[in-house]
């Protein structure tokens, strides 16, 4: 009886209900292998600790280096400092500016429909001499660091071998659960636009302006 109940918990019949406790926090099951998925970022929760960047660079390059990571934590002062994680959102076909900009044929940077994430073909990529994909991406999510690689790199959802086993390390390490690995089509877990992010921040700090935060009427 006990064996049967364990099998039920680990089976794939009820994936959404099977919430488990891992290191004291709730973890949702990974999206199915043939589902378009992305790293959903809750900016309001992010504290800017940058552990996601450490996890990413460890997974991909075996070093702790925030500049060798597919995910970045930008820390703008607006005027209060706020950590904003930025990574590739695995765009739809019509929005993939990086893929459109790639000059090689076939494209060196593309969305692999078999493994359901972005990949860069290092054999055909032109590397540091080109970097058109990096320039084309609005979010600057395609990264390049000559210290660790002569080719650009982009979030592959930690499926380095390109076998379809997507399991992002940054999501697992985030101490405040600001990062989530979610189905793209699922309810309200859509990718957020720049305007939506700005709206979230503006609601909090409205009506601040650039000039108003340091006492314009007081001459220090």
């Amino acid at each position, binding site marked *: 009886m006990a064996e049967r109940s364990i099998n039920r918990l680990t089976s794939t019949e009820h994936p959404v209900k099977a919430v488990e406790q891992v290191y004291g926090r709730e973890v949702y099951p990974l999206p199915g292998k043939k589902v378009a998925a992305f790293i959903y970022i809750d900016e309001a929760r992010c504290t800017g600790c940058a552990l996601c960047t450490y996890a990413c660079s460890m997974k991909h390059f075996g070093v702790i280096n925030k500049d060798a990571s597919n995910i970045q934590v*930008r820390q703008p002062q607006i005027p209060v400092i706020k950590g904003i994680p930025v990574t590739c959102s695995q765009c739809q076909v019509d929005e993939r500016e990086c893929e459109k900009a790639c000059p090689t044929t076939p494209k060196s940077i593309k969305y692999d429909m078999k493994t359901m994430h972005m990949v860069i073909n290092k054999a055909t990529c032109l590397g540091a001499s080109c970097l058109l994909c990096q320039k084309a991406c609005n979010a600057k999510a395609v990264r390049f660091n000559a210290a660790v690689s002569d080719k650009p790199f982009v979030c592959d959802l930690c499926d380095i071998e390109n076998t379809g086993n997507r399991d992002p390390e940054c999501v697992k390490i985030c101490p405040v659960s600001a990062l989530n690995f979610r189905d793209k089509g699922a309810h309200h877990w859509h990718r957020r636009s720049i305007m939506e992010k700005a709206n979230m921040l503006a609601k909090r*700090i409205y009506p601040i302006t650039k000039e108003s935060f340091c006492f314009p009427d007081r001459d220090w």
Partner: protein
Amino acid sequence: MAEIMFYLLDVDLTNRTSTKVDVTHDVKIYCAGRGLANKLIWDLVPQGADLLGPQQILHLGVGPLTGLLGGNISVNHISPLTGWVNRAYSGGTLGPEMLDAGYNCGILFKGKADTPVYLYVYDDNVEIRDASDLWGLTVTKTNAKLQDCLFKETGEIFSMATIGPAGENLVRYANVVVDGFHSASKRGPGATMGSKNLKAVVVRGTKGRTYADHQKVWELHKLMTMNAENQYLSKGSRLDGITAWTASHYRNPSTLEDFSYGQAMPGIKNNHTLWVPECDNYNYKDFLMRYKLWSHACPGCIRPCYLSSFKHLPEPLGAVVCKHLYDNSGGCSLNWMLKTYEEQSVVAAALEELGMDGEEVGGIVAWAMDLYEHSIITQADLDGIDLKWGDLDALLELMKKIAHREGRAPNALADGFWRAEKVFGDESIWYAYEVHGCAMDTQEMRTGTNRFRYPSNHTGARKGEMRDMSESLTQCHFLRSQMVNAFGSWEEAVRLFINAACGWNMTIDDVWDMNWRYYYFNRAISHREGFNVPLGSADILPIRAYTETVTDKYDTKYMVDEPYWRSTEWPDFMEKECKLNRDGSLPRSELVRLGLDFVIPVLDPLGVIGP
């Protein structure tokens, strides 16, 4: 596992040159951060040198664990306020950027530039640049202008440490502000920076860390981050200065939930009481709902402690952005009889603009108000300010005058308690609530253990130095409970991390030896510069601690029993906690055992070394 090398960026401001120095040998003995700074100060600064002269050094110290367990830097120098070795530290991204740029032992500044300059570090590219256009600007404006200019030049966001008008005018408790909101405040690192004509330090590093075993380091960090107890602490952000600060008015542990700030007590009305009815205006839940924007953490830290606060106030004050922390502005509210968070927010924001230590300003301005009430200083002394309790406009005006050293009394106040007492006369001494010439406005010593920790401190007035190798590593001590949760004890956590990061093979005993070597050496430098000579002279509490009773909300009265404190409590503390002789002198046998015998010939004539 190969041992890593340690490099220090040595900047000579007089000749405008810089070199990268290998300091691996010293780091293996003294550790990095403040431990290495001990050696640098002892070797490079002559005994009794001018406190704001070119012979002084300024060391922005980092260590092997910076950016891994918090982003702390230690700012090391001889304090212009006390004249002894200083202990100031700051969070932010500056330390991790230094490591990423390849300087894993920090930056050392020597000499003095003839015109205002700032240091630019972008990996191996080090330049000393002109800062004439930045001189005179407040901290936020300096940061905004510099950040803007550097972004246009490089397309990168730099981490920066800057000083405000207070640092430029050599106010002896001016601070160094990191990233515009973290600050190394205590006892005047900003004044030392200003005395070198150094307006800012900007750093950007892209090389990454040089750990001996990245995999091991990361596994250890994951173990700490994923600990169930730590997960709870990270999400709840229980380390919340405002909660502690408010709840401490009531001395009721249950209001502190699961977090205790020790026996901290903020001063009220220049520390004349422990409770006034206005305390009820300060409610941390009210604060969280009305002011708090979000929590922020340093790189690598799982315990976000920075609370961004914002409030749009009626004109002419406008929007106020500040950081509310216990010892940031806790001593500037009811200690000045300001009655609401609104007023405290304005003061906190002004402190950040001017670049002054909130704790020191809180104490010294409250003292000035007390003196004004008792007619020891006059309106003419204050350059026309009518300094009444709780008058926000008068207080802001006084803060501005202190930062710019305008007027007789503000100029004297800018030099700290001891120098100001000479200007205002002996009558003013009773009203000063200070230890070692440093304000005591956020940690009341009559109610708890602060009466041991503050006077025993050879760096001025602050607690927790005896067993604090955190700043040599440099690791944020706010993370200590997380380390204990994950590894059982702090020293075991340090041993594991330091061995993985540096490739060393330390035992627990080695960790403790390094800890006590740091402590004795640090104390020896202060002794050399005049601390506690003759012995016991500096280990005293303010007169009011023995003569004035304070009362809390529940009508409990507190005062220090001087004979008992002197005969029993104090010697016991020296022996058991500080591992010193009962009279407070350094133990000779321990100095020899730890390889610090070279300090003995210098200190022996001063009489501060015992058996």
